[in-house]
């Protein structure tokens, strides 16, 4: 077994284990911190795939902004936020059935997919992936249109947020 495979298994175990803890832990704030562990695991997987930029953006955006926003919301509401009710309700059999069905569906789909046999093309040592990514984002033949659409969407959200906040202030 190669070292990268061992590392992949470790990170996958961390991601799955912490994701399981997110849904089973009783305290809301602990769930948020377990979610952060999951996000770090995903960032580690990105780093293993030579996608350093994605790994860093994963941490900056998801850990640095979204997870902190979650924790902020939890801290502002109540102190304990304990989930005292039983974690399962009476529909759990149906839910488990659906989960099993979608899992087996995905499993058969991916089992028939031949993409797994492909090996990733070797990156040359002096290739600067981040320059390539930057160029691809502003090249019309590559990802210029999705990039611009995403920026327009974000700008619209920004203006909307300012408008809503302004309205609340003037009332």
């Amino acid at each position: 077994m190669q070292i990268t495979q061992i590392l992949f298994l470790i990170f996958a175990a961390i991601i799955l284990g912490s994701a399981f803890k997110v849904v089973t832990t009783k305290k809301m704030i602990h769930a948020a911190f377990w979610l952060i562990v999951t996000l770090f695991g995903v960032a580690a997987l990105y780093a293993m795939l030579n996608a350093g930029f994605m790994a860093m953006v994963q941490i900056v955006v998801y850990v640095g902004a979204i997870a902190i926003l979650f924790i902020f919301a939890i801290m502002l509401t109540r102190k304990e936020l304990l989930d005292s009710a039983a974690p399962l309700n009476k529909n759990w059999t149906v839910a488990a059935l659906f989960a099993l069905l979608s899992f087996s569906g995905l499993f058969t789909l991916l089992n028939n997919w031949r993409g797994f046999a492909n090996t990733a093309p070797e990156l040359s040592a002096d290739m600067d992936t981040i320059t390539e990514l930057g160029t691809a984002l502003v090249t019309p033949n590559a990802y210029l249109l999705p990039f611009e659409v995403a920026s327009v969407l974000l700008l619209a959200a920004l203006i909307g947020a300012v408008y809503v906040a302004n309205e609340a202030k003037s009332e």
Partner: protein
Amino acid sequence: MEFWKDPINTIFASLLKSFTSGGMSEVLATILIWLIGILLFVTFAMVLDIFLVWIERKVVARFQDRLGPNRIGPFGIFQPFADIVKLLIKEDITPVGADVILFNLAPIFSMMSVLLLWAIMPFAPLMVGVDLNVGMLYLVAAGSIGTLSVIMAGWASNNKYATMGAFRTVAQMISYEIPMVAAILVITVLAGSMGAVGIVEAQEIPFIFYAPLTFIIFLISAIAELGRSPFDLNEAESEIVAGFHTEYTGMKFGLFYAGELLHSFTFGGFIALLFFGGHRFFGLEELGPIVGALIFIGKALFFYWVIMWVKYTVPRIRIDHMLAFNWKFLTPLAFILLMVTALVGRLFLESNWLVPALFLSNILIAWLTVEYLKSHARKEREKEEALKPSAQMTQH
């Protein structure tokens, strides 16, 4: 001579030779040497930290017209060791109702977020932990771990003052991250690289001449990110006891304190790296990486002193002023600077006029900003004065 030219790789090669001569496999030996190297590097950072405590106390004493520690050792240089002994023998208190795991994890995360930054600090051309091509993004990502540690500490302490400190910190760090990222983007545009080594290599002329205003923005947002005065609202003694570390005792508090000092020094290093050419100093760096590293540390210490100078000169600002200053002034200015730098840099690309053009455009922006602020202040004052007579009339 080899050692003088490339100390790290020479040590690595000789260690590898002696390790593998005993029959150890090369992969294992490499991993072991890396681990030893990381350990030594971190130890160096921590030992430096001990002396930063002494420097900090000495400098603050001078600013406040005192002598500072002067009893233990010459100039009181062994004072930090007495401090450490004191911190170690203090009672370790965990408050009732505290979240024990998060409470103990928080100081570790605080220290970790600083030590992570040392991985990309380019002391000299061949003396750098790892030259990430996304180095500057890594700086921001490590900062978010620092924010996380403060939230952990504030929430887990089960103390209202600690929670309030955490709230303030989050508001401050998340907002000041934006001008900081914009300032780093200006540098990225100028250097054409996000890696720390690439940025140093691009500075034939230090970037302070390309972007003086960006330097000021980065300095302000770095001080805010550090949570030092005038942005030390998260531990404002006169309002919320000690903020997020109210409940911490002994060495756990020591870790927060040491983390803050080392963080300041690290940011001093990043200021030197981004704006003052890192290890470059009038061609003196040609003498070898060790000289370069010494120059780098010297510059980092100087900017650490600048951060202290600001800390002990400026009083704390109010929280609404802090937020308004960021969102209404610093962020727009940083984005304007980014746009102007990109435009001017593009127009004067490969020309000798690049530096004067950028410098003059910075001066122009600074002048326009000051004029705008003056007119804004005049308007505000007129509004106030228009209100005053009516207020007096209602009184009588």
